[in-house]
């Protein structure tokens, strides 16, 4: 969009360039006296351009819960033009608005091979909204132009002029009730290569037809839900963490995170109107 526009993007020559505001999120300082059970490398995909609805919340929850389970998170960012990190244990990516998606699109296609390899190897990944769509086969806009995705997920998305907005509750066979908030105009249809994350009890989900929300493939969880998704759905967060730890260390010995507030926040969120 602004200073992150890749060189050669269609920006008029006389347009002022704006400095980034040095106002980044940071993890709270580590204060655990216990020795770490191991280090897990978490990569945020395109946090500069794809961060529209509190996507930091998902990264923060993964990092903090890793600590609370006794592990050390190593939180890295991957942005347009960066070198792709090696030895990735967990990937989290968020949503953007249309302009953000245009900025990352070319770069994402250039990373198709490495991301596909990680996905096929069973690396746990959480992709929300915009990156859910671009992890699919394509996004066809209302005007008929086709934005290619990287095809990791057997899904396709069609732009509509109807915006699906509001609180969502879904029932997932793996994770129980998943709560969140949707806000999208692209409608996604699942192919036979993926399963839905769940079926909607409140809200719309992938599209206005089939009552399904999100997609599951290997260890990838894809969803339209913000909220942010992971804070109020610790079962989902712990699935991603357990999978990452087991892949790296063979087994996972969980800690005891205090989920009192998460339970209460879920109870109150579930009672709110659509």
């Amino acid at each position: 969009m602004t200073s992150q526009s890749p060189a050669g993007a269609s920006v008029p020559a006389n347009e002022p360039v704006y400095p980034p505001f040095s106002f980044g999120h940071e993890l709270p300082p580590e204060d655990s006296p216990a020795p770490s059970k191991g280090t897990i490398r978490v990569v945020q995909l395109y946090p500069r351009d794809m961060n529209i609805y509190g996507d930091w919340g998902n990264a923060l929850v993964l990092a903090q819960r890793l600590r609370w389970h006794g592990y050390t998170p190593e939180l890295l960012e991957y942005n347009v033009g960066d070198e792709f990190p090696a030895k990735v244990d967990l990937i989290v990516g968020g949503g953007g608005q249309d302009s953000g998606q245009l900025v990352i699109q070319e770069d994402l296609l250039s990373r198709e091979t490495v991301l596909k390899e990680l996905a096929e190897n069973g690396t746990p990944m959480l992709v929300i909204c915009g990156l859910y769509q671009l992890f699919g086969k394509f996004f066809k806009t209302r005007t008929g132009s086709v934005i290619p995705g990287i095809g990791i997920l057997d899904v396709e998305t069609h732009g509509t002029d109807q915006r699906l907005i509001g609180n969502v509750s879904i029932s997932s066979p793996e994770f129980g009730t998943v709560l969140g908030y949707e806000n999208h105009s692209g409608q996604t249809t699942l192919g036979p290569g993926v399963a839905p994350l769940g079926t909607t009890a409140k809200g719309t989900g992938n599209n206005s037809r089939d009552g399904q929300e999100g997609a599951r493939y290997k260890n990838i969880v894809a969803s339209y839900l913000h909220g942010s998704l992971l804070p109020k759905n610790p079962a989902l967060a712990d699935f991603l963490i357990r999978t990452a730890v087991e892949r790296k260390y063979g087994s996972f010995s969980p800690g005891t995170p205090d989920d009192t507030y998460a339970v209460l926040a879920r109870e109150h969120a579930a009672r709110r109107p659509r």
Partner: protein
Amino acid sequence: MFYFSVPLGKLVRRVSRLRGGGSALPGLVVEKIDPGFMRRTLSTLPHGVAVVSGTNGKTTTTKMVVELLESQGLKVFTNRTGSNFTRGVAAALLGEVDWRGRLNADVAVLELDEAHAVHFVNQVPPRYCLLLNVLRDQLDRFGEIDKTAQLLQHIASKTTGTVVLNREDPRVARIADTLDGPDVSYFGLDDSLLSTFPNDDELRAAPGSPVPPAPARPHADVVLRRVGAADADFEYDGVTATTTMKLRGVYNIFNAAAALTLARAIAVRDSVPGETAVADNKGLLKALSQVAPAFGRGESLVVDGLPLDLVLVKNPSGFRLGLKSFPAAGYATMIAINDNYADGRDMSWLWDVEFDTLRGGGVDQLSGSRAYDMALRLQYDEVPIGAVNTEIAPALAAFISAARDKPKRVFCTYTAMLAIRRELSKITAVEVVS
């Protein structure tokens, strides 16, 4: 038709006020029977109409512009009641016009919600507009930030005289490139203050990420150079002037630069031809020093002989600026988060705000329909939490009695603020906003 539309509208207004009803019904009536009413009435004003829009700070900024112009002897019509939509303007007009539909004012300064401003400018092209910012606010209503920017662009394109833009908000500043009719004036920030105003694209900029060389930004009519504890430096016409300020909070004072830019355009530069300027800069600056915050926008009330500050928070940038503008040290802190329609239903925005500045003192009380979402957010930032109660009245009472010997601060969303003001009015003097 329009011979009786005004008397009829005024009558409906009286009746609906007697019933204690809403302010929009009379506007609706006059809009239906006399669609040309607003345009006809407002087009007679010698200084025309100024529209103030943007995500954050409309109310305070509009109040400032009105007070600046009034201090210089101009008679200003404004939509004070906070009904910042077209029908609300029509209703406010009905209250001000005489029975023959004449408005006794020199200029109209109107606060308009982005989407409603578009309807308004289609009916009444303004002479001036002031566009403050485009931030993530209630995206569940407008869809996306870029769409909100398009709404503001439309307002600018309908403006006939001067468009005042925030130079530091890229989405607002670039509206200038799309205009060929109106003049453009900017208000801006000193480089040293830029880092206190994150824009939404930069919310996630990595700590310590390299800062590119200082960019060439367009000349700004008014630049906020420095913000002190109770004063500020504004630069205009090549001179830096220091003034004391009653307003608190960096973002309020940046909005003061915005108000000053618009007031200069209206009252200094564009005085009525043949007459001398109605105001001078010194007079405007003096008036600026006297402006008090609008309700709930850094407003300070007195409870048990100690200040209780109300800070309205409605989007990530505003919450961040609120935390930065009002340091927590020495204060008891309460946060009240509602998710009613006017607050925005999506709680994602809480995760775009960092609460590390509250880690030292903790938060004494949480409340609102999404109090537990806020508790969860604070837990992940390792901020200690006192009590949680989703009901605002008992939560506020507990907060006040537990922190009797400390100054207090409440960060609250819009409808939570209304509820808190209602409760506070039972125990202290709270300005009634009609």
